């Protein structure tokens, strides 16, 4: 039997936010503001999701001269599937509290 992935609440937050608009690219700072996660928590999550293939990243050319290029992120197809599974699991937990262990 495959081991169930243990996903933290913070990772779920990131996945849920990215799932709201799966085709859009996000910057790290915007994600941090949208999820309320500090950079020290957010970036290790992004690195891990990226390493596991759930996230696609790319470099965005600067819009203003003299600025460095920025990293942008969005869910990969497997990331979308993971985020949807997580969302369904979350809903299931929220709607059936009587099934929780005492």
């Amino acid at each position, binding site marked *: 039997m495959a081991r169930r992935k243990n996903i933290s609440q913070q*990772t779920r937050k990131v996945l849920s936010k990215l799932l709201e608009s799966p085709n859009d690219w996000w910057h790290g*700072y915007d994600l941090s503001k949208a999820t309320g996660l500090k*950079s*020290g928590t957010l*970036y*290790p999550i992004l*690195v891990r999701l990226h390493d596991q293939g759930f996230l696609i990243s790319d470099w965005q050319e600067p819009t203003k001269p003299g600025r*460095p290029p920025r*990293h942008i992120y969005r869910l990969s197809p497997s990331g979308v599937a993971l985020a949807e599974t997580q969302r369904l699991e979350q809903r299931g937990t929220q709607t059936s509290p009587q099934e929780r262990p005492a």
Partner: protein
Amino acid sequence: MAKLDRWLTNTVVRHMLGHADKTNREWALAMAAEVDEIAADAEALLFALGCWRAVLFSQREWVIWASTGLGAMLIGWAGAKTYFALLIAGIAPMADSSIVPPWVVVWAGTAGTAYCVAGLAIVFSRWWVAMAALFAALVVNGAGYGTSVLTDTELTLWLMAIAGEDYFIWTCAVLALGGLAWLRHGPARRMTV
């Protein structure tokens, strides 16, 4: 204040980029670019500090935790030793210096200082300094132990006990330092959140 924030932010980003290795260089650059986008200086500083932590911990999370713990232990032991030196020198509260020869004060103070230096060196990953300081503590403790036996003072028994504690601490520190060096130079470790 804004200038100070900006200077601190730039320092943190420089340190982060300087410590990034090939495993997380790209991520460090991505984080630095995000810091660059934030207009509010205090917010940029907090964001940069988080990024700095993420980069450092992604490389050697266990080394950082272990070295901080070991360093704190040695600094704590140095504090106890220094208090002991003050106590027998008659400076600290409850001191009774009537039976204590001066060399004991020098011994405890020197060993305490050596442990403190070793602890700080470990916290800041200065491994050779840590080894040298621990070796100095070993020599000083050996000298103290030997002198206490030779002079056969009333202190001999409890000096032996303290020296024994010192050797225990010293052995733990050396073993932990070896482990840290292995972690630092061993296979790259990636963080899992």
